């Protein structure tokens, strides 16, 4: 055996022998483990990075102020690269981490959420897929461990149609209008389709679905079709590079930008900045504010970034996805606080945090207290409703920043909720899940 | 070693163009292929390297032209000198510039290049200008009129003989003083073999190119070569000038297929061989 091969074999076995013990945990005081499944690498990293930074910074702020009621939160980032199997690996690694296990998982990927939903029943850890994941999880009677508040893709679609109706001068005017849904050709992108179809029938507009395959760098054909159709409105459920290209292509065919609305994963800085001036006027949905004008942002700058604990660049504070990370953590920490009201001030187990999520009541006053007055809509979760049919707002890119151009639009619960309940019931039947009564007994 | 009185042999000792001194070659760090091979090529000579399949002929040539690296082979012992200079460390490209070029076994033409383009690649290392290269090209066409006819066809579509000519002509384009020729007769009709060797002979006589040729076809090789080495299992088992080799009983027996007495049984041959090996 020559030396090179010997070293090689030696090195390999050494690496594998040594690597599989995770780092020793410094266990001293009571703390809670909050896993953060992020993707700072891969095709979707441009979107994953600001979100992860927002999460990290807000938790750093909470910890700097002593934690949740004095209990510190240990945020453990696990890089998924937006890959489902890696996400599962992260979950398995972190679910038992810390003194009482992980508090709650934010999978940050629809694919990973689907993986975890079933596992949570067994492992008793809640999953909060904020504005993504399985829409049917809104029915808390079936999906005990899964939350997707403040709103879902189905609610969003109905709110967008409501907005369009408003712009056209009333829902009745929708009749005969042409609306195109350009969507990512994946379960995520297709989520809104059934709702849109129902609404198209109800209001008599003509819906055209144009799927774009991952990653969506080439959309000539799609936008040529748009050019021929000359739709009144274009709604887009895109992700990653697809958004930037779509905006550019829309500009290239001279489509009016203010008739082009992206969903909340298609209206971020990453989507419009690469398109340059062409993106001005582009609209998008949002369930929280953009910018860094809130006191909480100032606090993050002062108490986190100035102390050298910031996760990303200072300029990134206030970006749409950064703020989404922040609001996600606001929900999480407030749910913990709620749970401590019942279970006492201590490190909470996943089951206890689940109760906190289910009984979360985030009032406008509390938001203001947190330095985020008006940043998001107040929200109250219940056993029946893990989504709350939360309202969305329309924001518009003015070339430099996102500005709200509408009030909070309440989605059409009458359309969406029956669909949710039907899907949830089907799921319960297929999986033989006992439906909860929601009388406090389960 | 057999002792010979041939004048060429002593000449080789006096003015060797190429000297290989006791080299050992190991493939893949485990397989010992050459176990100490020494040989000399005199200036202006044709030296034949004879032996059966796997005796180490090609390996010896590749060790000299330094093409072993690509096959995970290493020269682990011994030295190689060309015109008195150590050349073991030189790259094939440097060697070609010095005047040593190899024509590989199995011809190895560039299939997707035309015959003429093939020839031109041989002149890659030359720095003496387009005119001189043009002249060389004419010279090659002079020696191989057949190539001139086929110069625009893809080398991959030419016959085996034409490919061998292309390969030889390509080597000639480098203006070499020594060509390492590996199995030129392989897979060719006897008539073509003669033709090729006639050209080798002419090149040797008129252009003064020295040849070290590895050949299984001992008969033909010894007809044209001045001196020969016989390799067996990675060792030189016999050497001598062509005439004495041709007349040697053992060579006749094993390599020329001629037998003085009555046919011996296979068993005898085996015993004989074994004894022979111990003697060397």
């Amino acid at each position: 055996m020559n030396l090179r091969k010997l070293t090689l074999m030696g090195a390999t076995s050494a690496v594998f022998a040594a690597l599989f013990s995770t780092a020793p945990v410094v266990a001293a005081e009571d703390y809670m483990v909050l896993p953060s499944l992020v993707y700072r690498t891969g095709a979707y990293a441009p979107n994953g990075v600001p979100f992860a930074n927002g999460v990290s910074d807000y938790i750093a702020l909470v910890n700097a102020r002593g934690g949740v009621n004095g209990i510190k939160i240990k945020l453990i980032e696990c890089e998924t690269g937006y890959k489902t199997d890696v996400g599962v690996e992260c979950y398995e690694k972190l679910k038992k981490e810390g003194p009482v296990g992980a508090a709650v998982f934010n999978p940050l990927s629809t694919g990973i959420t689907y993986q975890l939903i079933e596992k949570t029943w067994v492992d008793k850890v809640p999953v909060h897929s904020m504005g993504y994941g399985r829409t049917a999880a809104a029915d808390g009677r079936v999906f005990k461990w899964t939350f997707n508040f403040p709103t879902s893709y189905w609610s969003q679609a109905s709110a967008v149609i409501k907005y369009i109706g408003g712009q056209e001068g009333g829902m009745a005017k929708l009749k005969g209008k042409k609306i195109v849904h350009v969507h990512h050709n994946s379960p995520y992108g297709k989520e809104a389709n059934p709702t849109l179809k129902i609404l198209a029938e109800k209001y008599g507009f003509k819906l055209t679905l144009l799927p774009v395959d991952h990653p969506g760098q080439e959309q000539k054909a799609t936008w040529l079709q748009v050019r021929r159709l000359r739709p009144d409105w274009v709604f887009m459920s895109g992700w990653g590079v697809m958004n930037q290209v779509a905006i550019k292509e829309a500009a290239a065919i001279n489509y009016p930008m203010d008739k082009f609305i992206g969903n909340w994963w298609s209206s971020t800085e990453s989507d419009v900045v690469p398109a340059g001036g062409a993106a001005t006027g582009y609209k998008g949905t949002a369930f929280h504010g953009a910018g860094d004008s809130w006191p909480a942002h100032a606090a993050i700058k002062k108490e986190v970034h100035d102390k050298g604990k910031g996760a990303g660049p200072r300029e990134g504070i206030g970006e749409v996805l950064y703020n989404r990370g922040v609001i996600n953590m606001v929900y999480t920490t407030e749910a913990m606080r709620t749970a401590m009201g019942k279970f006492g001030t201590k490190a909470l187990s996943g089951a206890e945090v689940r109760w906190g999520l289910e009984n979360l009541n985030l009032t406008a006053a509390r938001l203001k207290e947190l330095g985020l007055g008006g940043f998001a809509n107040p929200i109250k979760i219940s056993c029946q409703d893990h989504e709350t049919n939360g309202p969305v707002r329309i924001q518009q890119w003015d070339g430099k920043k996102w500005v709200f151009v509408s009030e909070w639009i309440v989605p059409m619960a009458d359309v969406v909720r029956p669909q949710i309940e039907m899907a949830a019931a089907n799921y319960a039947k297929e999986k033989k899940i006992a439906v909860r009564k929601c009388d406090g007994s389960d | 070693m057999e002792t010979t009185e041939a004048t060429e042999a002593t000449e080789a000792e006096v003015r060797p163009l190429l000297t290989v001194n006791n080299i050992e070659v190991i493939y893949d760090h485990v397989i010992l292929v050459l176990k100490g091979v020494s040989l000399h090529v005199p200036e202006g000579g044709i030296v034949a390297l004879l032996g059966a399949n796997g005796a180490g002929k090609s390996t010896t040539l590749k060790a000299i032209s330094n093409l072993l690296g690509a096959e995970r082979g290493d020269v682990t012992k011994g030295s190689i000198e060309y015109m008195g200079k150590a050349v073991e460390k030189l790259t094939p490209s440097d060697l070609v510039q010095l005047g040593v070029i190899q024509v590989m076994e199995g011809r190895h033409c560039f299939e997707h290049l035309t015959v003429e383009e093939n020839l031109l690649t041989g002149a890659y290392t030359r720095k003496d200008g387009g005119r001189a290269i043009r002249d060389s090209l004419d010279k090659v066409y002079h020696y191989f009129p057949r190539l001139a006819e086929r110069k625009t066809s893809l080398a991959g579509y030419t016959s085996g003989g034409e490919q061998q000519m292309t390969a030889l002509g390509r080597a000639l384009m480098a203006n070499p003083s020594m060509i390492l020729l590996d199995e030129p007769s392989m897979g060719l009709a006897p008539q073509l073999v003669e033709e090729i060797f006639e050209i080798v002979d002419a090149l040797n006589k008129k252009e003064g190119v020295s040849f070290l040729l590895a050949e299984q076809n001992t008969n033909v090789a010894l007809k044209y070569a001045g001196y020969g080495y016989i390799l067996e299992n990675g060792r030189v088992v016999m050497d001598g000038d062509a005439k004495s080799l041709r007349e040697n009983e053992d060579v006749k027996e094993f390599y020329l297929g001629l037998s003085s007495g009555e046919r011996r049984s296979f068993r005898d041959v085996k015993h004989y061989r074994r004894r022979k090996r111990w003697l060397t």
Partner: protein
Amino acid sequence: MDTLYAFFVAPFLDIADSPVFFIEVVIGGLSAGVMYSLVALGFVLIFKASGVFNFAQGVLALFAALTLVGFMDWGIPAPIAVLMTAAVMVVLAYAIERLVLRHLVNQEQIILFMSTLGLAYFLEGLGDTLWGSNVKRLDLGIPEASFEIQGVLLNQFELVAAASAATMVAVLAVFFHRTRVGRALRAVADDHQAALSVGIPLKSIWVVVWSVAGLVALVAGIMWGTKSGVQFSLSLIALKALPVLILGGFTSVPGAIVGGLIIGVGEKVAEVYWGPVLGGAIENWFAYVLALGFLLVRPQGLFGEKIIERV
């Protein structure tokens, strides 16, 4: 019956109905095809000269674009930044030869192919580490406005892309067939060992060819980066170049261009006219099926060199 009609009759009626739009689709396809060709060219160069199926070509384009944007962010004027990036690509080519290819001489093609996948991973990590993974805007001042001629929409940017592709092909064709180094490159592609034996120094040849491929990647990176922003997804354009390659042949420079145009037009026409029948987003696999169809007729691709086989 309805499906048959929708499949075999309706699209053609549609085309006849609005020929101007059909022309637009074709032009859209051509311009998309040129963009594919830019990437395919890099593949062809390296395959032709070294027999390496270089999957890292997409990542090379990404890396070049990232480096260019990085330099421009430092405030270096665009032309100088482009030159500097070109220099980086040459250095990279040298490093690849020194650290990877040199050690893999004479290995099987699949091993070489795999090593380029390893290279792709490495460069992805390196690019991200050096320049970060956020989307960056690349603006070299290439005009992007659209204009209409006779109702047909044209885009200035696409014309620039087409012109640069045409120039590159012309230069490369001359390089390969008329120069000493070009001939040596082709010789190396055929037979590493024979090339070595006639004194062609493989090492420097590889540096040359990877440098050229790096420069082609730079052009591709600039074009794609301008179009969609510079970010990780750029590396995936390699996948769009593959059907172009099988159609055009792995070793043909003009094949890369013509193949690109055919694939571009084919997939756009299919998507626009047949996509709705099949449910849309068919262009990705359609490109491959189209190429496959061609392959069954001509196994070496449209312009590829004939596969010479002997027993």
